[in-house]
């Protein structure tokens, strides 16, 4: 088993784990963690794709690696925005989870 194959398993498992957290965790910040887990799993898949593309004297295909770097920065920005939203929400409304939002439709009755 090569490191790449192993990384493929880790990546897939991370996606699964993150997805589970995203689905079941009621707190927004835990959902953000879940999203980041899935994200890193996806990046790992890019990583093994890069590794399998080793050629021309490079240990890994540089194009997917560059994409991962871009992706990490984007994921960070997303987390920052999400965190800012969560904190602001707590500030304005007190503790709120995404579950309790179903009342919002009829809030202005």
């Amino acid at each position, binding site marked *: 088993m090569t490191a790449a194959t192993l990384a493929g398993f880790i990546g897939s498992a991370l996606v699964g784990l993150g997805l589970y957290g995203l689905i079941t965790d009621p707190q927004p910040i835990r959902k953000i963690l879940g*999203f980041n887990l899935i994200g890193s799993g996806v990046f790992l898949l890019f990583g093994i794709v890069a590794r399998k593309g080793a050629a021309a004297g490079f240990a890994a295909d540089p194009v*997917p690696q560059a994409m991962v770097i*871009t*992706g990490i920065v984007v994921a960070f920005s997303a987390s920052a*925005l999400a965190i800012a939203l969560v904190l602001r*929400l707590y500030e304005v*409304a007190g503790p709120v989870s*995404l579950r309790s939002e179903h009342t919002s*439709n009829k809030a202005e009755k």
Partner: protein
Amino acid sequence: MNAAPIASASTAGGSLLWLAIILPVVGILASLLSGGRHAERIALLLMPTGFGIAIAIAIFLWRSGQPLVYVIGGFNPPLGIALRADGFSAVMLVTTALIVAAAGFYARAIFATPPGITEARAPLTFWILLQAIWASLNLVFLGGDLFNLYVAIELLTFAAVPLVCLDSRAETISAALRYLLFALCGSVFYLLGVALLYGAYGTLDIVLLSDRVSSEPVVWVAAGLMTAGLLAKTALFPLHLWLPPAHANAPAACSAVLSALVVKGSFFLIVRLWFGVLPNVPHEAVSFILAALGSAAILFGSVLALQQERLKLLIAYSTVAQIGYLFLMFPLVQGPNLWVAEAWSGGIMQTLSHAFAKAAMFLAAGLIAESLGHDRIRDLRGIGAVMPMTLFAFGLGGLSLMGLPPSGGFLAKWLLLKASIEAGRPIWGAVMLSGGLLAAGYLYRVLAPALSSDILHLKAPPRRSREAVALALALTAIALGFAPKAFFDFLQIGRVAVAGGSS
């Protein structure tokens, strides 16, 4: 499909493509840098310019009859990135430019920096994010590389989410958060698919991929993930959890852009995916699922629109329903059949007419809410007498949603209906018709009391120029109903024939 158009050479007019993207990007940077009132000025200044560019792209496209291509940095795909414009892109560019500009002019009243202050929060962010939506949509419509498009949809999300909660109420922030998290789920699914496609074929360029892909497991999984991710961002039923609160509670100008354009961005990519990247992969069953979900969306969204007590929520649920229509074109655009062009035109026409109609309706609803201080439907009796122009705009938009002539919505429905019959799949046509009935139902709930002769007092009458913006959008939706045949020929430019499915 053989001999895909040469992907790797910039065509005449190709420079316009990057210009269409860079221009609003420069606007964003300049707005943030100069701040304050300048942001508004920069945005309003760039809008006509951007519209001119969109029109120029359309003209070049019309003259050449071939997709426009621009290769960025001179590095041909697969290593580099290409931008491409076909008929669908071009009309979406023009539509985006128009609606963004309309929302901008409409929003001047709300998002003006108050006198005496050099800079205020909501105005600055609004004008920057409006340009950002515009930039990212242009990128979505022009991008020729799947990863580049990933960046585009992320940009779109980042621009759209804060617009939802500019008013800092708990419910809008909560809606924005839900929107962001779900949209992020969607993007990460999309990115997963991108990784798999790159791993299998070593390129992400749409045209190159379309030649290389074949129907094999990795493509199935990648396509499933990418489509599902984009569906989450399009809010197709049952993935619509974020849409009603976000669209209904955002400021009207933002709702208009979100409902009319932003959800269309990810829809556009689904179309790109199946008809641009995977035309050689048979997908009858996929189309069936998409259309079935679309049908469910029509039924669900419409019935729920009937249930709403607030005008903006009603319109938001109507968006849930109207998104469903977009997906009815999928099973009809299959194989080298005669009706394919019809269904394609119908699908695009639905996209365009819904964009204009829905933008008009949200803007009108915003005026109503501002003038009355609320948007409770049961308290709208007699609004027609005091705000006739606004209600007229709303009604015309509704006309198009119902699919009554003369309107773009009617033409779209007609084309799709005819195609569904010719394709021997009248079920999708029947769905469309019943959706029209339900739409009539929920619009009746608004229009009938609004037209009654009760006396209603306004807190403040709406500004005529803002009413005119809403009306102009509604009239555009109507004018689409008079589109000449040449327009439909234009939409076919660059359409790739889809394999299989010759019933």
